[in-house]
């Protein structure tokens, strides 16, 4: 029996394969990720943007928007979506079949990890920013449709979240918000490689247990140090404390990326927690 690939297809496919052989491993992985997982990627885009648009429409419907609280709500939604998708970064490794095809693909662990990181972290951040603008525009559109008359001028404009970075009063807030976004996502990315199944829920449960313990311990020590006059939050040292927190979050985020990579590199065909 003859195969039904006609000559044009054979030559064009051969040419594609040959040209791709000359490209870098990252290039090939990037292309493979997009083609193999295009449905999943489209679904992620639709979910992220759909959630933002839906939320924007609700804000518009109820005549809200243009303020910090709405911006914070958008931030929370985008953060949640980033964490959910972050926890799915290694979802193809949840069973033996997926682990084999991932681990046996001829590319270095660093390249494979980097491509996943690229899609999950920077590209997801861009998707989140676009989602925010789509959501705020949807809010304005709904407000325009319903011909609302709300007094605030800000309500009738798209709020640019990047302005927070250019005002000294809000700079730390913006930086902390950004650092927290990436930190939280890195926690869920690490959770994604530690628990390939139900990783979001498991990471959520563990992280909040740890956060409660950490919060209680912090309050306890701050109180003791305050009583001993060793520590006091004042406008003078507030900036220093915020800077420390910022650096701490950045270092932790980088550590979590590194731990995720190490765990991925040492993955085996069978799942091991330790």
């Amino acid at each position: 029996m003859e195969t039904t690939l006609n000559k044009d297809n054979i030559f064009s496919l051969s040419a594609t394969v040959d040209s791709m052989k000359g490209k870098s491993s990252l290039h090939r992985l990037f292309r493979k990720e997009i083609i193999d997982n295009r449905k999943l990627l489209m679904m992620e885009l639709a979910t992220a943007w759909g959630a933002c648009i839906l939320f924007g429409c609700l804000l518009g419907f109820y005549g809200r928007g243009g303020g910090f609280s709405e911006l914070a709500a958008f931030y929370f939604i985008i953060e949640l979506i980033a964490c959910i998708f972050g926890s799915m970064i290694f979802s193809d490794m949840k069973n033996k079949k997926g682990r084999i095809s991932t681990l046996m693909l001829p590319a270095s662990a660093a390249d494979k990890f980097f491509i996943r990181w690229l899609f999950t972290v920077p590209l997801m951040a861009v998707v989140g920013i676009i989602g925010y603008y789509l959501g705020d525009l949807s809010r304005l559109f709904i407000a325009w449709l319903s011909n609302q008359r709300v007094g605030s001028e800000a309500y009738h404009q798209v709020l640019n979240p990047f302005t927070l970075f250019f005002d000294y009063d809000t700079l730390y807030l913006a930086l902390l918000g950004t650092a927290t976004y990436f930190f939280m996502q890195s926690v869920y990315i690490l959770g994604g490689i530690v628990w390939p199944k139900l990783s979001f829920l498991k990471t959520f449960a563990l992280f909040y247990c740890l956060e409660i313990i950490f919060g209680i311990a912090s309050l306890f020590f701050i109180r003791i140090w305050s009583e001993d006059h060793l520590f006091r939050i004042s406008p003078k040292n507030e900036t220093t404390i915020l800077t420390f927190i910022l650096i701490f979050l950045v270092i932790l985020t980088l550590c979590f990326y590194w731990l995720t990579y190490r765990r991925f590199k040492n993955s085996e065909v069978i799942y091991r927690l330790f």
Partner: protein
Amino acid sequence: MLIVKDLTYSYRKHSLPVLRNLSLQISPGSICGLLGKNGAGKSTLLYLISGLLKPKSGTISFGIFTPWERNVNFLNDIFLVPEEFELPNITLKEFLSTTAPFYPNFSMSDLERHLATFELDADVHLGQLSMGQKKRVFVSFALACNTSLLLLDEPTNGLDIPGKRLFRKAVLNGMNDNRTIIISTHQVYDVEKIIDHVIITESNGILLDSPILDITSRLRFRNTPNREEASKALIALDAPGGFNIVELMDGDKEETNVNLESLFELVLSNPSVVKSVFES
């Protein structure tokens, strides 16, 4: 050359090893049948050879590579077809355009040849294929990658009777002097005609590691209706019309084809006799 030396592996720290002090060498240019009972560690051995598991002790080397390091050049030159695998939900052409470039020796003309051997249409959507058809496509792709080491884990599972025949044809077509193919199976009839080297394992190590030529020069395999002959044989298995027997080769007798099932039973039931036969 694939060299495994004193390999020990257990899935958990304190559990019994699946493989213990296993050593073997496989030269290029051979199709090796890896046989063993269920749970003998055949798949585990393939995973260790392909770097998907880290040995607890002992070493594995393939050329200059240590599999567990999963060096890109090693991964370029090895292909594992697991018993169960996943293919993306895309067309075969898309699959080829995304996956074939990772294998420097991939040949489109070889793929066409293997697909033709398997009587497959190349314009297919991988998500719409049955398990057997997926296996045909994947084995064709694996052969077309022209890797030096090809590991096939239970490759005939899921194939229909014509599929098994075509599989044997495709493997023989895809074989060359620089290539090593290891086929792990418990369906001995499916690979009997194509392998030129047999390894029979159990958890305590290798029970038999021998080229087919060596086996046929030492043992004779035949069917006999004679009960007395059967009683004198090394092993006799009930078969239609009498017994399948294995007996020692006499110098003047003609060599026979290996009956893998009989050999397998002989090795498992009487390893010490087999050892003495092959050491003499």
